[in-house]
């Protein structure tokens, strides 16, 4: 089988691996919500069921998973605030493609090295010490011929820390239910609104918090809504009670 058709059954997704990839790249499934560990476990189960190791596809799988892990870690720990959650699907696809090509390239090069080595089969070299009368004398270097700065520089190089993963820029939810309540009440005061309009241009987190705020308004009897079909628009209006209250 190829990696593409590996069947997955995850919390947020069930279907073949290539579909998951496609959905991630089209941003229809949030990579942050995909448990890559579960994907790996599924693959291991699959391998166990097959009882054999398919080297080619396993390598492809490892490269893809590694690339997804890196993408995911970039999403979680964006190095710069501007970059936060800012990987375009095309960019992600290009990166995955570049990874696959890189891995493929050096795997092929490794195959070529195997061929070279095989072609040299049976070629041996002489390995014998020089006759004593020809042995190279190694002169002890002169006193003071080495510069102590060499040592200080070496220490300096080894003191360098590798680039640290910064946790500074993890996005903590900055939007609060109170803020969204105020926003929705403002819209309601104008008579009513469409939910899409209320969250126009907002990020995922804001959409979720706005939905909470809407539920809160409903619970308090301030708003009613209507949705004519699944996934259709949600029309929100002030509840009749509230209207009466206002009118009264």
């Amino acid at each position, binding site marked *: 089988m190829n990696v*593409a058709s590996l069947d997955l059954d995850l919390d947020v997704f069930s*279907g*073949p691996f*290539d*579909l*998951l*990839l*496609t*959905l991630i*790249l*089209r941003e*229809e499934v949030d990579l942050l919500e995909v448990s890559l560990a579960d994907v790996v476990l599924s693959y291991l189960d699959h391998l166990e069921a097959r009882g054999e190791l398919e*080297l080619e596809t396993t390598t492809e799988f*490892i*490269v893809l*998973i*590694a*690339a997804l892990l*890196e993408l995911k870690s970039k999403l979680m720990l964006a190095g710069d605030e501007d970059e936060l959650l800012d990987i375009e*699907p095309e960019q992600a*696809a*290009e990166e*995955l*493609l570049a*990874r*696959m*090509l*890189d*891995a*493929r*390239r*050096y*795997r*092929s*090069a*490794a*195959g*070529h*090295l*195997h061929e*070279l*080595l095989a*072609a*040299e*089969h*049976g*070629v*041996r*070299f*002489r*390995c014998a010490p*020089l*006759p004593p009368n*020809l042995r190279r004398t190694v002169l002890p270097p002169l006193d003071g011929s080495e510069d102590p700065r060499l040592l200080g520089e070496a220490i300096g*190089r*080894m003191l*360098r*820390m*590798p*680039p640290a993963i910064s946790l500074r820029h993890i996005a903590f939810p900055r939007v609060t239910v109170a803020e969204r309540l105020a926003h929705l009440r403002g819209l309601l005061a104008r008579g009513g609104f469409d939910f899409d309009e209320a969250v126009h241009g907002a990020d995922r987190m804001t959409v979720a918090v706005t939905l909470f705020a809407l539920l809160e308004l409903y619970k308090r009897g301030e708003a009613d809504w209507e949705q004519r079909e699944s996934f259709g628009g949600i029309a929100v209006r002030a509840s009749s009670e509230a209207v009466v209250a206002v009118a009264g």
Partner: protein
Amino acid sequence: MSEPDELAPVLEALLFLSADPLSADELAEATQGMADTQQALELLREQYAPGRRGIRLRELGGGWTLASDPRSEDAARRLFSRPRTATLSPAQAETLAIVAYLQPVSRPEITRIRGVSSDSATTTLLERGLIDEAGRSQFGAVLYRTSTQFLKLFGLRSLEDLPDVARWDPTPEEQAQLRDRLLRAGEARADGAGA
């Protein structure tokens, strides 16, 4: 100045004695321009033409070196009771290929390309003398490069003998297909699932 046929035996002796390949310059320097080194090497090359002798003259690792003819391998294995070199595992071959093409290259970089840790492969390649340390990267990671031993064992005159790595890249059409596969392979299913 003597004749090439007087110089050839001297070069032969030097090549016999030296563990490392010797360049024409090194040979010329050691023989202090006794005669034309290139002509003498040409002469030696004829004497060592494949099939004539049990020893071959090879141009490897930036110089000239003598090596056994592979036809004696069965006998050599019986006599020395060890194979010429251990074979490379797939992980070692991939690591070696990355070092050969990208040198100097660090371990994290190798790991990034392979998608898996390459520590034990790197250590084995170092122990077998196929790669050497080559300083540190700007982030402090040890860098690696291939050794003369690598060129010798793989029958290469220099790194230039390695084919262009782009040779194994898929054609632009295939790349476009791969890109499509990544972006849209599951689209039919995605649409099916979304309905």
